[in-house]
């Protein structure tokens, strides 16, 4: 493999890791606050559809982004209502959201665009443009570092940079701000938050809301950045891979970056080399697709350290006597 191929694979890794990273951080906020969310997939899908639809109709990728976020936040609100206000089962609510999104997106798309449940391809202003960072052209002649800067770091769409900037920002919010302290506390011991005179419900809704926004950005990126339009089930399990990455990352922002890059790399390799020939043994592409899940099982089995979820995760908070 030559240097340029390597760069191309890594470049594709960055693109593919972006939606994973956004969804993973979305899940991180929600689960750190004690609300498990397996509806990441559904929220991304809804966002992907609505952002593509609105971007096509209005020709504005920004309006598309906002519509995508709105769709995702609306589903978050349902999840919050079901699992926080009415203390329902968080897993069931999440599953319901996934089904709802999978069905509704295709139904509305067919009704709206009559193209078999997809949106028309986006052109021009309907898609995110790649940003060329300053001096990318001039520096590309510099050996090694030049191509890395020009190919790998420069030339992505705005949302990619947003996603990567979210990592330090999330770390800072979680560990350096009052909001972060309370958010982490409410996922570990909501009764401590409650007796300290802080609203458990308010905090959890805030976390679920942030989760909705980030999932919205992730879905919009899929339909208006990575691809040019919405197709049926285009999230293709990314929401679940993001959840796997979240466990892999032990619910920590920087680890999440590492996990998402790793899973992005696996996807990039699978995309570029359909079947990998290792001198006689051919690894089929399905193995690469399954690797994130296999790695997660290995983690959960405790081979690579222990992943301890937030203690109050998955449980609705009921005041006890």
């Amino acid at each position, binding site marked *: 493999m030559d240097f340029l191929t390597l760069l191309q694979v890594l470049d594709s890794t960055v693109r593919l890791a972006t939606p994973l990273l956004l969804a993973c951080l979305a899940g991180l906020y929600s689960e750190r606050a004690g609300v498990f969310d397996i509806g990441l997939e559904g929220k991304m899908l809804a966002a992907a559809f609505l952002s593509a639809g609105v971007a096509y109709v209005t020709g504005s990728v920004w309006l598309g982004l906002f519509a995508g976020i709105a769709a995702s936040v609306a589903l978050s609100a349902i999840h919050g209502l079901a699992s926080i206000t009415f203390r329902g089962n968080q897993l069931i609510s999440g599953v319901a959201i996934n089904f709802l999104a999978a069905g509704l997106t295709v139904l509305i798309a067919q009704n709206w665009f009559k193209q078999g449940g997809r949106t028309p391809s986006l052109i021009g202003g309907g898609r995110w443009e790649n940003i060329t960072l300053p001096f990318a052209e001039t520096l590309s002649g510099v050996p090694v570092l030049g191509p890395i800067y020009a190919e790998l770091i420069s030339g992505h769409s705005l949302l990619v940079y947003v996603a990567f900037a979210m990592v330090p920002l999330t770390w800072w919010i979680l560990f350096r701000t009052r909001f972060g302290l*309370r958010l982490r506390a409410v996922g570990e011991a909501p009764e401590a938050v409650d007796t300290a005179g802080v609203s458990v419900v308010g905090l959890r809704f805030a976390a679920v809301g942030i989760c909705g926004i980030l999932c919205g950005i992730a879905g919009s990126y899929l339909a208006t950045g990575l691809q040019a339009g919405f197709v049926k089930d285009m999230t293709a399990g990314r929401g679940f891979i993001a959840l796997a990455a979240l466990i892999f990352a032990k619910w920590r922002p920087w680890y999440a970056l590492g996990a998402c890059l790793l899973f992005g790399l696996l996807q990039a390799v699978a995309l570029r080399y359909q079947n990998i020939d290792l001198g006689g043994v051919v690894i089929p592409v399905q193995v690469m697709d399954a690797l994130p899940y296999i790695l997660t099982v290995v983690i959960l089995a405790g081979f690579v350290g222990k992943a301890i979820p937030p203690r109050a995760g998955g449980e609705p908070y009921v005041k006890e006597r």
Partner: protein
Amino acid sequence: MNDTVPAIELKGISKAFGPVQANKDISIRVMPGTIHGIIGENGAGKSTLMSILYGFYKADAGEIYISGRKTDIPDSQAAISAGIGMVFQHFKLVQNFTVLENVILGAEEGGLLNNSLSKARKVLKQLAEEYELSVDPDALIEDLSVGHQQRVEILKALYRQADILILDEPTGVLTPAEADHLFRILDNLRAEGKTIILITHKLREIMEITDTVSVMRRGEMTATVKTSETSPEELAELMVGRKVLLRVDKKPATPGEKLLEIKDLRHVDDHGVERLKGISLDLRAGEILGIAGVAGNGQSALLEVLGGYADATGSVKLRGQELPLSGPGSDGSARREAGIGHVPEDRHHEGLILDYTAWENAIFGYHRDAQYQKGLLMDHDAIRKDAEGKIERFDVRPANCNLAAKNFSGGNQQKIVLAREIERNPDVLLIGQPTRGVDIGAIEFIHQQIVRLRDEGKAILLVSVELDEIFALSDRIAVMFDGQIMGFRDPAETDQRELGLLMAGVTNTKEASHG
């Protein structure tokens, strides 16, 4: 502060949960700078009353006055700003946060943490010096002992500038030494003019530290008296509504043959922690051996191993016969068959199936006995009749064997378990925490049953975290600490202080008690 205006005054507080009247027209005045005890049995309404004061529940009727001002307390935030701090029985701490983080949670200064943390560090240092409340500010809660965790709870309240501190059953989880330290802290707080409400069911604590005591029974405040003008006997009578015997009436033991011989018993739990580190003891017929110790020092593991639901190594002989400690023949029913009855520590999880009826619960563990079978099926009539007899003999109330176990009070649940195990006439009876969460009236009855069994020549292994209970019942006392037996003592020749030191792992108690 004006000494004639009460720090807290409650007027006519009432609260009902459905048909249950938890608090009935309760009025109370707590003077500033005093320690006011509230005593009452489980379910008397103490915790409900305090939850109303801390804004967890809204009272149906009644008024709250703080330092003479009428105050509404709709939520915890309002209670905190009214200067009320609460130390719950089950601590409200974030386990993987540091002490500092727990202290500032909800009382942060501004949006960023840096300022709050450095301010809290300073304040904590002051408080530590002022009140003997030292805790490492950077330690994680999960690494702290229970006593230190409780200090963090008190620090949390003081950091929020609480003038009124409510403590709910604060000594339940503490060693005697830790409890003494807590009382010193409370003394210091009182000297500084803080007002303290102490909720407890332990008469000794009330007599030791409070200035005034209020007694609650069935949702009502039955009396408020000066501690110096009352006695434990009078308080017990006020709590229960009739005269109770606080001392257990028993003759000296007449120990017979060795029934149970335990040698070098070792047990490692599921987390790989060695819970029993070589326990050796003998148990004779006609004696009660009390195992004292702070919860979590291996007593539970000992009961589980002997009761047949945890594996171990070492040797256990019953009447000279070796019992298997793992593999076939080491389970609970084999132990019961061999003649070892077991009243487990946790009656809700191990002693009963709460959703099952009393008659079903009355045969668990013995449900394979021939007398309960009718061909392939169970003989429900026989089981019911059997249960009705047990209920009558053990005075279970209500005497209705069709009620689910969860509908009985703690004391009556315990009577069901005791009836099941005792009526099978075991040679050895293991009893864990026989009176935990049991009201005083029932305690009297349960203690009498245990002594009766001893007088019939049975061997009884009693595990209890209540030292008073150990002293009242035991003919011999063994103290456990960290999976080992620190020593055996004769109850007539030892005292709470010596046992307290043993429970904390100090072995040369003679020296320690002189120096």
